[in-house]
Structure formats: structure tokens, C-alpha cells
């Protein structure tokens, strides 16, 4: 369980995250959703103890991340798939991580098999495609067999096969009773993956609820704003449309479209 209490992060006078409180529960895929620049990555970095909150706290099972006895055995994280030294082989790379947490060497080959990279275990990772990098990052996250998995934009830049693979993997991890947190700015992706949503915009919490409830709330607003419904069920919009309606005030760049009404309509067209 991840608990954030009044989490705030300021860089100089700019607030990246403001007074964020939420609880992430096990056994679900929790989607961490927001437009680009909403504070998703900042929040994840604070969960992992990489960035220090300006105020507020975030804990893993009641303990700040830095005080976990074996961090990798509680939390596995994939922040930047390519954030590693490309000169090392996949196996050496994972070994450097495993050793810090006293994880046995054989587990490295286990996780490489799990993500389908056993054949390239001895290859230097410099030449890995983005899809392979994502798999390697997920292998790293799984090394400690953790109960909590955190993925930042895991499907970014992946091809269709890679996206399906990651989606299936995340669902199966949650089905095993693990806590899975996945951030994305892609609504269609979340609609297929998440059970629960935490939505932030400009660093503020917009919603913390089930996927269905979020769509219901967004539908009301979108329909009230006059979204032209072309789907068979005129009372329910897609997650993307719901999201556009609920975060219309929170996006940084509108590509020339004013907030609110038009943004919601734009959602319908972009959602084709």
C-alpha cells in the first residue's frame, strides 16, 4: 500500500505537485493519469525517495521508501527504460542491481527468461530496441519479486505487440495480488489496463476513483458541455472524452483550442 499525505513539491516558485493525498491499494492496477507536465513523474520520484517533497509525506506500507529493509523486495520500479550504462550486458546490468539487495545471481536469469530476453542476456544493452529496453526495465523491477510495481509511461514508444505484452503482464501481476501503479497520458491505454484511477492536473488531484466512476462523472460533464455523441450508447463517453472534460482546465497547451467546451469536443474527434 502506498500512502501520500499532503504531498507538495516546489521547484523555486513553481509548484509541480500541490497537496496531493491518495492511497494505492494492492490487487489492482492503479492508473496514474494526467496531461504531460501534470506532475506524474515527480510524484513517482517522490514515492521512490529520489526527489524530496517540499512538504507532506509518502510511505510504502507505513515506511518511507529510504527506510525499507530491502527496497527491491518491496518495490520494483521502471522509470526510464534507457537509464542504464549501455556498455554492460543485460545480465551484468541486472546483476549490479540484484547484488545491492542480496538477491541471488540465479534470479537474474530467471527474470530475463520471464520477460523473454534470455537469448540476449550476454549482449551489451547499447543496441537494444526500445521494446527490449522496456522488457529489461521490467526484468529489473521484478528482480526482488516485489509486492509493489511502479511503471512510468511503460508503453511510450512501443509497437502494438509490445503494448499488448506489457498490458497483459501488468494485469497478471495485479491478478497475483500485487499493487501495480502505471502512469500514462494515453487514455485509451488506461481504459484497457487500469481498475482504479488517480488523475492529476497541474499538480492537483482531480480524481481518485474507479475507472467506471470516472467515466460516469466525465460523461455527465462532457454531455453537459455538448459533446456530439456518435457511439451507440449516448449516455457514456470514452475514457479519453471523460478525461478531456474533467481536465480541460489543467492542460498546459491547447493547440489553439480554448478550454472546456471545445476541448471536450476535440476529445470526441481525437477519439475516433
Amino acid at each position, binding site marked *: 500500500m502506498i500512502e501520500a499525505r499532503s504531498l507538495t513539491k516546489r521547484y523555486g516558485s513553481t509548484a509541480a505537485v500541490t497537496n496531493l493525498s491518495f492511497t494505492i491499494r494492492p490487487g489492482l492496477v492503479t492508473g496514474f493519469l494526467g496531461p504531460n507536465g501534470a506532475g506524474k513523474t515527480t510524484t513517482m520520484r517522490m514515492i521512490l525517495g*529520489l526527489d524530496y517533497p517540499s512538504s507532506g509525506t509518502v*510511505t510504502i506500507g507505513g*515506511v518511507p521508501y529510504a527506510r525499507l529493509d530491502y527496497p527491491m523486495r518491496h518495490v520494483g520500479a521502471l522509470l526510464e527504460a534507457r537509464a*542504464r550504462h549501455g556498455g554492460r550486458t543485460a545480465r551484468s546490468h541486472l546483476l549490479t542491481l540484484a547484488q*545491492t539487495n*542480496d538477491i541471488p545471481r540465479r534470479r537474474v536469469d530467471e527474470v530475463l527468461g520471464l520477460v523473454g530476453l534470455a537469448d540476449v542476456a550476454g549482449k551489451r544493452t547499447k543496441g537494444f530496441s526500445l521494446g527490449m529496453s522496456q522488457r529489461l526495465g521490467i526484468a529489473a523491477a521484478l528482480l526482488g519479486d516485489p509486492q509493489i510495481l511502479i511503471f512510468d509511461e511503460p508503453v511510450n514508444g512501443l509497437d502494438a505487440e509490445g503494448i499488448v505484452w506489457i498490458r497483459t503482464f501488468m494485469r497478471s501481476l495485479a491478478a497475483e495480488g500485487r499493487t501495480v501503479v502505471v502512469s500514462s497520458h494515453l487514455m485509451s491505454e488506461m481504459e484497457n489496463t487500469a481498475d482504479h484511477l488517480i488523475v492529476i492536473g497541474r499538480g492537483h488531484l482531480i480524481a481518485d476513483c474507479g475507472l467506471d466512476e470516472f467515466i460516469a462523472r466525465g460523461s455527465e460533464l462532457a454531455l453537459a458541455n455538448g459533446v456530439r455523441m456518435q457511439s451507440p450508447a449516448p449516455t457514456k463517453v470514452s475514457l479519453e472524452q471523460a478525461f478531456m472534460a474533467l481536465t480541460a482546465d489543467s492542460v498546459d497547451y491547447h493547440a489553439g483550442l480554448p478550454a472546456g467546451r471545445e476541448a471536450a469536443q476535440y476529445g470526441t474527434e481525437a477519439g475516433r
Partner: protein
Amino acid sequence: MMTAVTTHEARPGARTARRRRAGLAGTLRSEVTKIISVRSTYWALVLLVLVSVAWSVASSTGTAAHWTHMSAQDRAGFDPTQSSVIGLVLLGQLVIVVLGALTITAEYSTQAIRTSLTVMPRRGLLYGAKAAVFAAVAVAVAFPASFLAWFVGQRLLASTHADATLGQPNVLRAILASAISVVLAGLFSYGLGAVLRSTAATITAVYGFFFLVPQLARALPTAWYDDAIRWLPGGQFDGAISTSGPPVSPHLFSTWGELAVLGGYTAVLLICGAVLLRRRDA
């Protein structure tokens, strides 16, 4: 493609029965794996040994060839030990500071530092383990390199009968001082790398401190220069590896004094690096 992942009954944040935690031993093992699993380490270390020995070969061969033409005064002033190990000090340092910087700055340029700090959030411990492993590698290479360069140099000077032996005054001191200065220079660079977090900036700054600033200091009036140069980190390396007795000039430190100055700068930088790593967002 999907395979079931085995699940432990461990709960997040729960303490294991023996209250053990990820600590120094594992982090040291990890840092050893890191440093031996990239090719640049081997390139750098081989280069370090090569340039040190090559300098010694070139210098000793040249001196031996010209020995008969040298004046008595030049022969008396010739320091066979200094001329054999100064290559390690000057060129070896050029190499070791790159390796020292890369040990920490490569983590920033690849952003791997975030992964490293996620798996080992005790930052001071990670920083210390990294420095210790780098220092151990530097010691393991610099000391053999200094003795090798010295032995090779003396062999090639044998025809002059001016070659030194280990038992002569200050010879061993000069050999050890050359290796120590290389290790310290590497750690100096590591500490500055932790402060600057950029490979290019760190290497430029270290070269500036060690090689450029002492040259610029020559623009000072002589009296000031002698006082200033002994306080510079790269000021008096050649003096530190001289086998002559106490420094000729009262303005200069002894060998150990010179190393203590470099060691002092190194300690300050290592501490600054540790404090900043702990304080800053990664």
C-alpha cells in the same frame, strides 16, 4: 510469453525476521560488478600503465644515449628515480582523473543514478562504496605501475651507472608518492564529479586545477609564486617525487606535505560530493 511470478509472503515495509537490510557488503559487490563490467575501465587502466612505462622507457633511453655528452653538472643533477616515475604522475593522472570522474558522472549521463538510488536509497553508503571500489582499483593499478616504470627505467639506465637502487635514500618514497598522487587525483576527480554531475565539466575542471592553474600562477611575481604554488593541488608533483633531501626552497613543502595538500583538497571534495548527493534531488 507469460509465466507466473512466484510470490513471497513479504509485505511492503514489513521487517524481515532477522532485521537484516540491504547494506554495505552487497553494495560493494554491486560496485565491483559495475566497474569490471564496462570496457572503458580496462582501456583506461591499460592506457595508464602503458603511458607510464612508455615515458620511463623514452626518458631513460634518451638519457642513456646522451650520457657521455652530458656535463658533470647535468649528471649530478640527474634524478634517475624522478625521471622514471614522472610519466606516471603527469600522464597517468590525465588518465585516472577520467576514470575517477566517469565512475560517478556516467551514472548521471545515462541517468542510471536513479536506478542505483532506487535499489540502494542509502545514498551515503552508495557513494562511499563507489569511492572505495574505485580507490581499490586505482591502488591495485597505480602501485604496480609506479614500480614497473621505475624498474624499467633503472634497467635502461644501467649503462650510465647512474641508475638508482631501492635502498638509496628517498627512492622508495618517490615511487610510493607517485602512486599515491595518482590515487588521490582519481578520488579528487570522483568527488568533483559528484558535485558537478557532468563528465565534460568534471574533466575540464580537474585538468584546469592540475595543469592550467599552476601554469597561470607563473605569471605571479616569483616570491608570490613560490608561496602560492605549494597550496595548489597540482602544484609541486615533480618536487614530491624528487629523491633529493628537504625541499631547496623554504616556500615548498616536503613530499608528504605536498601529498597532504592534495589529500586535503580531495577530502574536501569528497565531503562536498557526499553532502550534495544526499541533499539534492536525484
